[in-house]
């Protein structure tokens, strides 16, 4: 018991001192002190609930991806069967996309093998899984249905693409350290610290920004807009900002241009009207198609459609040959700038809705830190006082161990680059109250052993030995609960779990070997025949 080899002392002190040193940068930042640049600075991150900021959970609909995929397949099948010349053409009819399946009838049953050969390439995809199932019913009806695996792939790649689009859009805000990660199959988490205007953020990342140019056939009547479709064209309503309620236009269904061929979009000001506009530029292919279209239909109206709403429908007075154009609408500088960002980052491949948002203002977070630290300080003092008046010298060892424990906990969290959240502060308080439990068990056992008549050294030795069983068992059950806590719940709760679990390890270290070393040292030096406990 009394013999502590030097290497062991050095190791124990080394670990404790290292833990404390690791805590210093975080302490400096929590108390708003400057930390010298020359020194390494592992710091705990402050959670959004303490630093202020927005947490936004976006969700896509699997059904929407499925529907879009079906639409693409219809287009693909039609174009494959049309062939390059009339001789090759396979005629089909009765095309339907009901019930999530694409089905069509071959006009001539003799074409089955040829049709199958042409479609084969479309349904096998590029991966190793079978993406579509093809059935031929009644001799000449083809039914194509999506396989679950194929849809999984499509959803996954749509979400990956959406992730990169959102990353681009948020980068343009220039906020510090945003986090954008996928969660589950159809979700994306966006966390932006220290943001002042969450509405603007949601506006920016939530919009699909699908841009289209289509030739206007005529104005739509209110009844047509309400019904949503007309024969021989597509009804598109005016956007709310345009201020024409119930209004809309009928545009040509096919043959338009979409935003995928844009290379650049930038907010600008129209020199004539002084209005905010968005200047756009197309790539080579887009420019060619834009030139063709505007040359062919010069003098007619074109609708600029954003997310299925018309933002303006100007008359094309002259052909646009250089691939440069301008979108005007009822923009403010802010909305024009947003649109420019959205257009340059590309359209989201799938609509995303905000299903959860948590925003904390910077003032509330700062107040929470102040109140939390104050409460933690008072709690620590009370625990120390209680331990000292109950266990005397042994209580002092326990309180010194407690302080080292708190610092090491902070230090290890900094090293792990963990996040301190508001419930994490409660985790610190809980750890402070529970960490001394081990010392209580040890000290009570020593008291008991002394009462049974054991000599001081034997009593202390037995105290540590007999108490450690219950200490380890208790810590392991706490660990189990802590792991389940971590796997449950959102960010702040995870922050609570991290503190509790790391705190278990540091408290076992400080309460057992560290205090034992001090007690042994004292006993060896003084050799007391009795102890006040």
């Amino acid at each position, binding site marked *: 018991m009394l013999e502590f080899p030097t290497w062991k002392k050095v190791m124990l002190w080394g670990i404790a001192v290292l833990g404390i040193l690791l805590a210093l940068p975080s302490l400096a930042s929590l108390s708003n002190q400057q930390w010298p640049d020359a020194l390494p600075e592992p710091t705990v991150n402050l959670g959004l609930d303490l630093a202020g900021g927005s947490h936004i959970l976006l969700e896509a609909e699997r059904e929407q991806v499925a529907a879009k995929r079906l639409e693409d397949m219809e287009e693909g099948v039609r174009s494959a069967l049309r062939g390059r010349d009339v001789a090759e053409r396979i005629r089909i009819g009765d095309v339907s996309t009901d019930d999530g399946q694409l089905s069509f009838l071959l006009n001539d049953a003799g074409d089955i093998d040829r049709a199958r050969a042409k479609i084969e390439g479309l349904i096998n995809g590029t991966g190793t899984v079978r993406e579509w199932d093809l059935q031929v019913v009644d001799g000449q009806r083809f039914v194509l249905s999506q396989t679950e695996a194929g849809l999984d792939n499509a959803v996954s790649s749509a979400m990956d693409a959406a992730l990169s689009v959102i990353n681009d859009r948020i980068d343009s805000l220039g906020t510090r350290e945003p986090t954008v990660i996928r969660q589950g199959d159809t979700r994306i988490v966006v966390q932006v610290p220290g943001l002042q205007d969450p509405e603007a953020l949601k506006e920016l990342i939530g919009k699909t920004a699908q841009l289209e140019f289509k030739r206007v056939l005529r104005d739509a009547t209110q009844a047509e807009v309400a019904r949503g479709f007309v024969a021989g064209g597509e009804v598109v309503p005016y956007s709310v900002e345009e201020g024409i309620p119930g209004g809309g236009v009928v545009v040509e269904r096919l043959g338009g241009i979409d935003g995928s061929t844009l290379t650049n979009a930038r907010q600008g000001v129209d020199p004539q009207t002084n209005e905010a506009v968005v200047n756009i530029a197309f790539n080579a292919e887009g420019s060619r198609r834009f030139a063709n279209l505007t040359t062919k239909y010069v003098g007619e109206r074109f609708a600029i459609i954003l997310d299925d709403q018309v933002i303006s429908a100007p008359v094309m007075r002259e052909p646009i040959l250089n691939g440069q154009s301008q979108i005007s609408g009822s923009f403010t500088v802010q909305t024009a700038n947003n649109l420019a960002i959205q257009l340059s980052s590309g359209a989201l491949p799938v609509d995303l809705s905000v299903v959860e948002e948590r925003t904390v203002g910077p003032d509330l977070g700062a107040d929470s830190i102040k109140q939390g630290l104050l409460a933690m300080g008072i709690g620590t003092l*009370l625990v120390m006082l209680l331990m000292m008046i109950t266990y005397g010298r042994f209580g002092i060892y326990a309180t010194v161990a407690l302080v080292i424990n708190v610092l090491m906990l902070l230090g290890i969290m900094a090293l792990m680059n963990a996040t301190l959240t508001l419930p994490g502060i409660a985790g610190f308080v809980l750890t402070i109250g529970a960490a001394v439990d081990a010392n209580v068990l040890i000290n009570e056992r020593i008291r008991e052993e002394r009462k049974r008549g054991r000599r001081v050294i034997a009593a202390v030795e037995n105290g540590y030995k007999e108490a450690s069983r219950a200490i380890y068992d208790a810590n392991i059950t706490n660990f189990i609960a802590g792991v389940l806590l971590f796997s449950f719940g959102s960010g*702040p709760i995870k922050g609570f779990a991290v503190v509790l679990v790391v705190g278990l390890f540091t408290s076992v270290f400080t309460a057992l070997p560290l205090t034992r070393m001090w007690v042994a040292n004292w006993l060896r030096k003084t050799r007391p025949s009795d102890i006040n406990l």
Partner: protein
Amino acid sequence: MKLLKLVPDDTNIKFLKWRVPFFVVSLLLIAASWALVMTKGLNYGVDFAGGLEVRATFTESSEAPIPQLRTDIEGLGYGSPVVQRFGEDNQVSIRVRLPDEVSADKEAAQEAATAVIEELQGNYPDIRIDGNDNVSGKVSGEFREDAVYALIYAMLAVALYIWIRFEWQFGVGALFALFHDVSLTLGMFALFQLEFSLQIIAAILAIIGYSLNDTIVVYDRIRENLKKYRKMHLPDLLDLSVNETLARTVMTSLTLLVALLPLLFFGPASLFGLTAGITFGLFVGTYSSVYMASPLLVWMGVNSDSFVPEETVADRQEKKLRGEV
């Protein structure tokens, strides 16, 4: 210096004498808790009910105009909001639970929050929006489901560990004690209609870990005494074990309590539910380690053989054959 001894030496309280009435009372409390949860229901916050919560400070006033706020928000047509003081007198929390037909739309909570915040900013120039939580019906449903599973798994996992470390009777005893603690905590939240949020589940999970600390200390002592006093009548042995560890039970609960109380009274308002939950769980957990976890062992028939290896019984017979006993 004279040291403080909260529990006098050599107490001999007959805890187990009253085990039947106490056990009946505990069962009744569990039943009452669940009855409260079923009838009065838990006062779900936005995490579990969906909807929105906005926290705000009136920077120029000493007191928030709570009745006026209630009328303002009600005028928006989302039903009647819960408007409460939150922290200081000039700080409020406004909670709106959306009607079912509205919350079917995924973005409904978002739109309602925008409307509420615009209404507030329009009506009160000195208002500072400190934060808002908007949770759609879908996400809140998932939270409810996850919470139930997390609680069940945590109780089972911890009880399983106790079974492995001790005997099955101890595992069952611990599980029952945990069920008692969780039930009563839920009952308290239903009785006082305190806001029930994700933080409360975190509190209960923490309780599941910590309330067993005392139980383990008592169980460890029971195991030690079972080996030591082979012939002692079981209720007496349990009484002895509880009495011997009483100072520890009181002291460990007290250190946790003095650490938690300042947080409860001076801590940030957003942590009140979490701290209140843990503090309450601390009391029921301490009670249950004495009155639930131990008496159950009597009824499930723990005896010294539980911890005596089989060989020892064989050894004894061998000794008998050799005529040594």
